[in-house]
């Protein structure tokens, strides 16, 4: 391995719901990242795209679609799909190309345009597809799974709906300072608790929306970074899969694996995602300044506090109550961007948007949402079908 790779530039569209073609968001983010990096498009040697599955062929080949829209320059290209971790998988692909010596500078891009309402499987009768079956046989939407995790926190750890609401209040305050956020209004816990229950115990304001948006990252080799003065170092990109038996119920499954014959692994899948990143980086939770975690629901953000090692199991509510994870709090600031609570999901862009935020924070460019003296940041997310990712950046 020839050292680390560096973040040379980042770019992100404002998140929203405009109904434009996904490629336009991708190009807009890419051009901002290229400009931020000071790199001409002609000089990009590898393009890694995170796919969106809702746009036919152009979405499946997002890397090529964006490369063509920027103007075919002969770069090598890849398009990756890994549900919510797609952006990180694309980042891992570009990092490996650079470290393998095939290129010095690569563009990673993800963009999506999403339909209104619940994410649902594509149409047609597809009883072979577990994602189709869970809707048909159980009526199990994404919030169903989030709510199961939330209820378990209540019955096991004494969490309350107010604890969940507190996370939304915190993130909405952060997002109010983020010009790229879609929702920029600070909300109160009364507002969260007064919003309709979608899947008990989660209210509408506990659950993230779906959005349009694009994010892009320009990565470069260490040698290239030295010439250009790039400071943000990629310390780890974890894209691990579960170990059998995976004993936590996960979208879109009907059941967990059985642990009747083989004992479960020491770490749960969600714990193992960050653990692999820490191991690769040679860092731990004690080194963090901030974390961008995948708050598909407020309660899930609390799970992540434990999964990335900010506290022991059952202690996340206390961290939130004490304001430790809020900007200016005593602990690691979580979701200074405002998180999914303020952005909404744009699946292939999301893991890259997290990397953009950490980069701005490490560079001290986050304005009113700046985490003081940010030195190390982690991202964490988890998608369908055994996809999770965690990226650690430092300056």
């Amino acid at each position, binding site marked *: 391995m020839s050292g680390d790779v560096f973040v040379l530039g980042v770019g992100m569209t404002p998140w929203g719901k405009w109904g434009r073609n996904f490629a336009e968001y991708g190009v807009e983010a890419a051009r901002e990242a290229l400009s931020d990096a000071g790199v001409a498009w002609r000089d990009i040697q590898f393009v890694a795209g995170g796919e969106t599955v809702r746009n036919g062929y152009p979405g499946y080949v997002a890397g090529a679609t964006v490369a063509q829209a920027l103007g075919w320059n002969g770069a090598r290209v890849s398009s990756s799909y890994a549900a919510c971790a797609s952006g990180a998988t694309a980042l891992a692909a570009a990092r490996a190309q650079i470290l393998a010596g095939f290129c010095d500078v690569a563009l990673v891009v993800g963009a999506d345009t999403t339909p209104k*309402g*619940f994410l*649902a*499987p594509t*149409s047609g*009768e597809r*009883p072979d597809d577990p994602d*189709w*079956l869970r*809707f*048909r*046989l*159980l*009526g*199990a*939407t994404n919030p*169903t799974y989030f*709510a*199961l*995790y*939330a*209820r*378990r926190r209540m*019955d*096991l750890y004494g969490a309350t709906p107010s604890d969940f609401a507190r996370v939304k209040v915190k993130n909405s305050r952060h997002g109010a300072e983020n010009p790229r956020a879609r929702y920029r209004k600070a909300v109160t816990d009364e507002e969260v608790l007064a919003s*309709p*229950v*979608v*899947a*008990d*115990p*989660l209210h509408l304001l506990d659950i993230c929306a779906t959005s349009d948006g694009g994010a892009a990252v320009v990565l470069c080799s260490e040698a290239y970074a030295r010439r250009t003065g790039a400071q943000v170092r990629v310390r780890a990109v974890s894209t691990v899969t579960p*170990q*059998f*038996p995976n*004993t936590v*119920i996960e979208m879109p*499954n*009907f*059941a*967990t*694996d*059985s*642990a*009747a*014959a*083989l004992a479960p692994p020491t770490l749960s899948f969600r714990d193992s995602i960050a653990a692999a990143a820490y191991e690769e980086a040679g860092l731990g939770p004690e080194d963090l300044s901030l974390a961008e975690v995948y708050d598909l629901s407020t309660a899930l953000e609390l799970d992540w506090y434990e999964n990335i090692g900010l506290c022991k199991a059952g202690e996340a509510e206390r961290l939130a109550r004490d304001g430790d994870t809020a900007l200016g709090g005593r602990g690691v600031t979580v979701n200074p961007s405002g998180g999914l609570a303020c952005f909404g999901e744009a699946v292939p862009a999301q893991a890259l948007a997290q990397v953009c935020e950490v980069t701005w924070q490490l560079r001290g460019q986050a304005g009113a949402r700046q985490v003081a003296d940010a030195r190390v940041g982690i991202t964490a997310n988890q998608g369908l079908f055994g996809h999770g990712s965690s990226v650690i950046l430092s300056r």
Partner: protein
Amino acid sequence: MPKTRIPAVGSEGWFTEDGEGPALLGTRCTTCGTVFFPKAGFFCRNPDCDGSDFEEVRLSRRGTVWSYTDARYQPPPPFVSASDPYQPFAIAAVQLADENMVVLGQVASGFGLDDLRVGAEVELVVEPLFEDDESVQVIWKWKPTDGGRR
């Protein structure tokens, strides 16, 4: 003419209502003993096992609630509502001790969130999921054994 009672499309062979009562049907790898639901029948998914021979097994009819929730708004297609207007229903994730696994299911008709808690015992029943013109499509559901209302 009475409508036919059939397993919901996609769940054929996933459960039974035979003489021994309702039960989920899984498979067990004859090499390592791992149980799969829905059935596995190709290669064993235990990474230490290269078995490819499976026997059908009935899963435990009783288990304990791992967690639970409900669906206050009608899920999008391919979900089909059993009633018009839509009526919310509860969903439980249930831990089966012998199989050491958790299985999701809707909660039996007439029971809701107030009848559930983490750790409570439930048993498997088979009930209608929805009806179409020709048939009543049935599915497994979880029913509190203590009659509900904690």
